């Protein structure tokens, strides 16, 4: 039976890894290749690596780095950051990456998604939406450029459009919850889940395995992604790469997704 996916999400900045809080205060957490090696040993389900400089400083994807990462990963890799064109997607997939995430470019020019899906197959096309609640009326809006630019667009409408255009997976990232470790935004995730049938991965807010269990309990088949949870340990947030061991993971899934036991 298909299992829910538990996915560490790593943020790359200046060739190092950082972890942010609400997209700010990047804290250095280690070297990307070393971290990937540790996650290999821990047999993680998948990995998301996002270059958070690539769009904001318009540098585009760092192919050398991506090549190293793809060769090192013994698990499926989703790369995101600075991808705006079809030829970039093709290059990244040729380097051995399974999935390419597109964010700002998809919001600004949705047509690009169908072009890319047609060429590389929809299973490799991921759209990441960074979403923030408008304080005045609690409406959700999509932000781009590392949370610096408000597009004013509604994420629900946008994911429906993306699904029609041929996206293979939606990663929904709640900016307000990023790095807070207080749990996922389940209200937002439910709205997204009801709008589409392609795989959904939720990111932002996981502070414990219980939070991941809650997400699996709510959705069953879902991608549960987290940054802080898998790179920090303890109340002082010491950097320690961690991930549930296979038996812990199995127990977590069984406890929250009863269908899995059948």
């Amino acid at each position: 039976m298909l299992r829910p996916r538990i996915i560490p999400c790593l943020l790359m900045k200046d060739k190092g890894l950082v972890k942010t809080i609400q997209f700010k205060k990047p804290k250095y957490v280690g070297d990307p290749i070393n971290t990937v090696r540790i996650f290999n040993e821990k047999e993680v389900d998948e990995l998301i690596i996002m270059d958070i400089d690539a769009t904001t400083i318009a540098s585009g994807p760092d192919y050398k780095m991506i090549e190293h990462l793809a060769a090192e990963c013994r698990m499926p890799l989703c790369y995101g950051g600075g991808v705006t064109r079809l030829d970039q997607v093709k290059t990244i997939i040729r380097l051995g990456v399974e999935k390419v995430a597109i964010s700002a470019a998809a919001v600004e020019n949705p047509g690009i998604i169908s072009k890319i899906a047609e060429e590389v197959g929809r299973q490799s096309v991921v759209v990441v939406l960074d979403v923030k609640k408008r304080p005045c009326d609690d409406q959700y809006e999509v932000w781009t450029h590392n949370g610096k630019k408000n597009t004013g667009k509604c994420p629900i409408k946008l994911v429906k459009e993306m699904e029609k255009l041929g996206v293979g997976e939606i990663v929904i990232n709640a900016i307000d919850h990023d790095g807070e470790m207080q749990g996922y935004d389940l209200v937002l995730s439910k709205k997204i889940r009801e709008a589409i049938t392609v795989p959904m991965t939720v990111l932002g807010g996981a502070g414990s395995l219980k939070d991941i269990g809650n997400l699996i309990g709510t959705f069953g088949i879902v991608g549960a992604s987290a940054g802080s949870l898998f790179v920090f340990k303890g109340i002082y947030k010491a950097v320690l790469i961690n991930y549930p061991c296979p038996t812990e993971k199995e127990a977590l899934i069984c406890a929250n997704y009863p269908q899995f036991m059948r």
Partner: protein
Amino acid sequence: MMTIVDYGLGNVMAFANVYKRLNVSVTIATSAFDLKNASKIILPGVGAFDQAIERIDQSGMREALNTKVLCDRVPVLGVCVGMQVMAHSSEEGHKSGLGWIEGQVKKFGPSTLPHRTRLPHMGWNDVQPTTKNRLFEGLERDARFYFLHSYYFHCIRSEDILAVSDYGGTFCCAVGSENIYGIQFHPEKSHHFGTQLLKNFLDL
């Protein structure tokens, strides 16, 4: 020599790295000439059916692959789209496949799923071998692999099915006929399960 075909699609380096850790040297073939000394061939692939066929044609390796596989009977392992191109055709595209194994690639219609997530079939799923085969040695029980696809290989001859998986119903996830093997899942990205399978292929 274990030879990984590089026609511009798929995780060539990921396969090479698995074998490197097993202390096995590999050749990466980008032309017909590079296939000359192949004693085992891996045909990887990530992407769409037509694009994969086009790439194989452009690489100039199609004839050499046919000769190696069909005449010299060199063991070949197709992975994901590299498996799908072994069929005659695919619902995903218009081009003809290599036709090495009797079958057609079809799209899932998983309306029976208990969850809202439908396609692509994405994530870790159980793989159950249906016959005794050396490719699945040590993987007869509790084996799971990473899947990422919306199309599957529909075998015409049931004896070509090596393993099945379940996604809104049972589907064929591994095919085999004599020296030709195909798997839908990604062993190069499936941790120790995948390493075991790639080691089995090496030891065939």
